[in-house]
């Protein structure tokens, strides 16, 4: 307290605003989106009905809608959104590329590939089985990308932003090509793959959330541990090393977090585009480049985006539904173009 005041003039540092307010606002937005997601659907529920449904005191039908359909779906959407938002921010931080998203690590292509293999060669059809295979595929692809990128990277520090992006594109393209060849041989896997690749939250019950929640939690812990390192890495690898940081270790930690987060999201909900790309940019606009604030806000923002898109998808073609992945692509693309046009995306 006194040390600063006692010092001669000009030695006080105005630290940047601690954006706890931003985190608060992001939390409120997420809660609003979650309530909307429980209210809106084929049957519109009033807030009172939602409350009654949540507490189990309302009429049977609304209790069933809220507890069996809407809440699990909302929970899943929030989990997937948090995972994609945080994974996107990590990806952009590690590649220092504003256009990077978790898909760049090959997670989507990897998940799709093993999913098709599981259906076609192992005869696995249920959601529970395919989620595991999707997750394993995402993990395998990102390990492959990381290994390839390390080969081309600097000797001591593992992959560089450029080699990561190149290896990611190469592995993704290869896996997508093989997946296409596989699904063309078999209608059952084509159907499953087609539906999965649209990116959807419906048709999944609370077990799906429970299945991926531990992985997402682990991913979030790793991401939090990676935040200070990512701040130093943002100053370039030489500066980071000069400050005593283990660049290779930080990269490995980040890749592990991205794999857990994006892998579980993609495995359960399909390749949902734009969330991992846009949420970090929106978050960065409010928090600045400090990852200790950027990561949580990107996660909350990602969850809000997914829930809002899912609600929109339930409204536009009633009584049918549009998959959340499609809504996000349709709404996200113009939004992203507007973002690029209005304000130059922050260089990373």
């Amino acid at each position, binding site marked *: 307290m006194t040390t600063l005041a006692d010092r001669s003039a000009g*030695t006080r540092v105005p630290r940047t605003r601690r954006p706890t307010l931003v985190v608060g606002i992001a939390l409120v937005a997420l809660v609003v989106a979650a309530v909307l997601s429980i209210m809106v659907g084929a049957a519109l529920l009033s807030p009172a009905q939602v409350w009654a449904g949540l507490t189990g005191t309302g009429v049977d039908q609304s209790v069933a809608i809220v507890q069996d359909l809407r809440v699990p779906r909302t929970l899943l959407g929030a989990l997937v959104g948090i995972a994609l938002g945080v994974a996107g921010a990590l990806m952009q931080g590690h590649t220092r590329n504003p256009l990077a998203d978790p898909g760049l690590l090959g997670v989507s292509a990897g998940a799709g590939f093993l999913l098709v293999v599981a259906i076609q060669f192992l005869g696995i059809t249920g959601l529970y089985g395919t989620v595991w295979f999707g997750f394993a595929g995402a993990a395998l692809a990102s390990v492959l990308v990381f290994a390839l990128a390390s080969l081309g990277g600097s000797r*001591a520090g593992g992959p560089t932003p450029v080699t990561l992006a190149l290896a990611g594109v190469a592995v993704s393209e290869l896996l997508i090509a093989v997946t296409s060849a596989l699904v063309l041989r078999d209608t059952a896997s084509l159907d499953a793959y087609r539906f999965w690749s649209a990116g959807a939250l419906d048709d999944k019950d609370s077990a799906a959330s429970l299945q991926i929640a531990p992985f997402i939690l682990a991913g979030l812990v790793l991401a939090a541990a990676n935040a200070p390192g990512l701040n130093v890495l943002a100053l370039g690898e030489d500066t980071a090393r000069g*400050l*005593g940081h283990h660049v290779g270790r930080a990269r490995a930690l980040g890749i592990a977090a991205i794999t857990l987060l994006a892998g579980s999201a993609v495995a359960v909900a399909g390749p949902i585009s734009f969330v991992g790309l846009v949420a970090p940019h929106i978050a960065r606009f409010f928090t600045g*480049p400090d990852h200790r604030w950027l990561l949580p806000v990107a996660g909350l923002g990602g969850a809000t985006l997914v829930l809002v898109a899912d609600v929109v998808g339930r409204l536009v073609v009633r009584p049918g539904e549009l998959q959340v992945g499609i809504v996000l692509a349709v709404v996200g693309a113009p939004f992203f173009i507007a973002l690029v046009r209005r304000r130059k995306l922050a260089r990373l």
Partner: protein
Amino acid sequence: MSTDLTTPAVGRTTRTRLRTEGLQVGYDDRLVVGADGGLDLDVVEGTVTAVIGPNGCGKSTLLRAMARLLAPRHGHVLLDGERIDRMPSKQVATVLGVLPQDPVAPEGLVVADLVARGRHPHQRWFRQWSPDDEVVVAEALAWTGTSEFADRPLETLSGGQRQRVWISMALAQGTDVLLLDEPTTFLDLAHQVDVLDLVERLHRERGRTVVMVLHDLNLAARYADRLVAMRDGRIACSGAPADVLTEETMREVFGLEAKVVTDPVSGTPLVLPIGRRHRERDDPDS
């Protein structure tokens, strides 16, 4: 005054802080530094050493190896007698700081936060930010005259101001030994002198040991106690500026015909290159 970490033990000794032994460094299959037998160099405490040499002579590579940014093929770098590659990197970072040639920062990063990142080696996961850090960062900013920019994003500053901020970050790291890779590149002459004056003050008032790569020979002669002239990955000659900057070494190391006179301002050697244009004009007369 204070017991903060930016004030190292000042003492005029002849203790070697940084030493290379048989150092060989290269990229891929090309050896850039220490082609025959490796490179030996001693950096004595409290001195300013400038590494000079033509483009591609390996001076930046040498500096990067000394800063453990590059792993040597053979030989070692010793920091206070201990092999740098066997010390925990974070521990090295409390003694030895490095400012790379062209440092980058993300857009929107404010100056105070950038300088604060220099405290990284002193932080642990359970103690991210302490009042001590706060004081050190404030002093580092005040010391380079950048306190007024503290809450401005780095990209809104001029090149010279930005370089002062980077030096503040190195200062906040609180290391006795500082390695600077071409700290004056991209700066106009006034700002070059400004940055080198800052280095000189670091050395004089804070007893820092400085090794820097410099392109400008005359400025190197003015600001360094010792010059190390490199050619083809070897030390061609080293010593006091007056011993190194001679017409003969200009020819041998840089392949440059030059006249060396005494700098009327500083008394150090002043290199006046003789290009073909002036040689041809002189020829008929001589």
